[in-house]
């Protein structure tokens, strides 16, 4: 061991820049990175639970969101025990599971969507689902069907760094970590280092769909984060449900994520496309449109 290490060190020192190894292609950006390089504000990310309201709603929902001008789509893998989510998302997950949604089926549906859509797709779910699928299998399958990024709220930073970072990077997937008002500055810096794509900024100490409106205390937190000059863009999530909260969020972050409010809109809908167009129009509102134009 000692000999070979010494040999290696000497060789590297005396060598010219090493050309044996593939140089990472820093030019090629992921769909998510591409989006954030082109658009800096008013980014709208909408979450839906796969398999809700109907087992085969996935494609129609994604295409409708794209048509409505949404920038990113977060696809929720329905889970029996979604700890970070509130009742709306949990109930939609139960309906989806009852409808028969499985990971394999979801991957098939997403593969079919990719033939006709180029919108960045993020898969959101709980780490047990990934474990049972087999971590490596899961990441590879994600890449193969055209998933761009992951949000796994219960995958801790320590486990990610120790066991999964390399796998996820090699699969070419982006990963977003969450920060909250209680996250310490040191930890935020660490999370910024590990994140690729965007940081998921939890607007308040809460589960999804729990609180309405944005308070002065939250605004102080948003300003504090903005002053940190993080390298990743930030999307604000939790409590964003309409034009008012969306435009406030956009003043303090690159954009926002909406979940529960969209699930509520989809509940009992007879026309997914129309409901989606109306919902996105409601969220964006005239003010945002005018600003973009």
């Amino acid at each position, binding site marked *: 061991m000692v000999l070979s290490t010494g040999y290696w060190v000497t060789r590297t020192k005396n060598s010219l820049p090493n050309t044996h190894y593939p140089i990472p292609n820093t030019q090629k950006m992921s769909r998510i990175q591409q989006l954030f390089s082109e658009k800096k504000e008013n980014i709208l990310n909408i979450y839906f639970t796969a398999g809700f309201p109907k087992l085969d709603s996935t494609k129609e929902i994604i295409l409708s969101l794209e048509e409505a001008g949404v920038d990113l789509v977060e696809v929720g893998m329905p889970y029996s025990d979604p*700890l970070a989510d509130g009742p709306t998302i949990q109930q939609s997950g139960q309906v989806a599971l009852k409808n028969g949604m499985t990971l394999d089926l979801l991957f098939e549906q997403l593969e079919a969507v990719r033939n006709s859509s180029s919108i960045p797709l993020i898969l959101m779910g709980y780490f047990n689902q990934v*474990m*049972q699928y087999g971590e490596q299998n899961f990441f590879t399958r994600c890449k193969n069907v055209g998933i761009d990024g992951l949000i796994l*709220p219960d995958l*801790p930073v320590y486990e990610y760094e120790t066991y999964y970072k390399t796998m996820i990077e090699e699969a070419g997937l982006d990963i977003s970590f969450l920060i*909250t008002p*209680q996250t*310490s500055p040191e930890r935020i810096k660490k999370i910024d280092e590990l994140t690729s794509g965007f940081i998921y900024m939890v607007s308040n100490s809460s589960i999804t769909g729990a609180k309405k409106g944005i308070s002065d205390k939250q605004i102080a937190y948003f300003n504090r984060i903005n002053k940190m000059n993080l390298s990743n863009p930030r999307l604000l999530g939790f409590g964003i449900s309409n034009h008012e909260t969306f435009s406030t969020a956009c003043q303090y972050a690159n954009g926002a994520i909406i979940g529960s409010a969209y699930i509520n809109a989809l509940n009992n809908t007879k026309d997914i496309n129309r409901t989606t167009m109306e919902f996105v129009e409601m969220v964006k509102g005239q003010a945002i449109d005018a600003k973009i134009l």
Partner: protein
Amino acid sequence: MITIDNKGYYGEFGGAFIPEMLHPNVEELRQLYLEIMDDETFKKEFQQLLRDYVGRPSPLYLAERLSAHYNASIYLKREDLNHTGAHKINNTIGQILLAQRLGKKRIIAETGAGQHGVATATVCALKGIKCIVYMGEVDIKRQAPNVARMKMLGAEVRPARSGSKTLKDATNEAIRDWINNPEDTHYIIGSVVGPHPYPDMVARFQSVISEEMLWQLLDQTGKEDPDIIIACVGGGSNAAGAYYHYLNREQVRLIAVEAAGLGVESGESAATSVLGSKGIIHGSRTLLMQTPDGQIIEPYSISAGLDYPGIGPLHAHLIKSGRAEPVSITDKEALASAYFVSQKEGIIPALETAHAFSALEKIKYNSTDVIVINLSGRGDKDLETYIKHYDKFH
């Protein structure tokens, strides 16, 4: 060597798989729990309450008629004689003192059968701290006396209406409450489950059980070590307490008794070590009952304290490494033991503990063996079930 590393792993089991929203609270606990528990004034207060309020040490009782029947020396560790009727209070006393030192003003807890809820409501009343207990809507209906006890003690019982509306969902709701109230609230988990440091912290508070066994056995048998320790395992807190000081004494056999419900293969069971596989539940990597897609399966047992779809990571490690021997006991076998023990020894055990007694019918032992059964709780709460099935067994 059975140990836990500084990331909370027993071998490959444990860790802290929690959303970022919980990180500050769990990290605060992780950094402080050992320091607080080692503090002399903390220890003094804890031990004093265990003695004067709980009634410890709990007796170690040589059950002569049972011993004669089974042809071995059978000792019962009488956790059923504790205040509130079970081992659960050892942990809630410890955690309420810890919560006070962390400056927390509000306590939340989950409960299945209601034993941990009652033990939590009790210590909150003792310390004058606000208490909210999450309990599945289904369990609220089937455990009415314990709901009444919690109310009597001043706690608010909040129904968990999500999912299957039982213990697993009550735990989810408690975790969500903690996410929504990150600053003033401490979550008193009732078993050796959840993210690190909970499994280790709860095991340490419960370790008073085996600490007493060491000297009680020495007194009564001339040796600190029994040959066999038997305990029932739902999440596994009474077993963790009974095993704790014997974990690295390989000569002591550890028997972990799980609830087989209607039978391990019946589809209505809670025998996690047989039916479970590696996965994550409530923030811990352990064995749990799940579908191939990782959806958590609702378990079944007649005993509300054993129908948890996972087991604590310590037990997953003990079983997978061969240190502990799992035994599965059906509803019917447990009921038979409950009637038998009641009439042999004049002790009505909790349904959970009745499973531990049934293990005597399943395991091999010698007539010279000293066997300790952790009598984790008394059966008052189960009288309705016992009366309902009485005629079938007599």
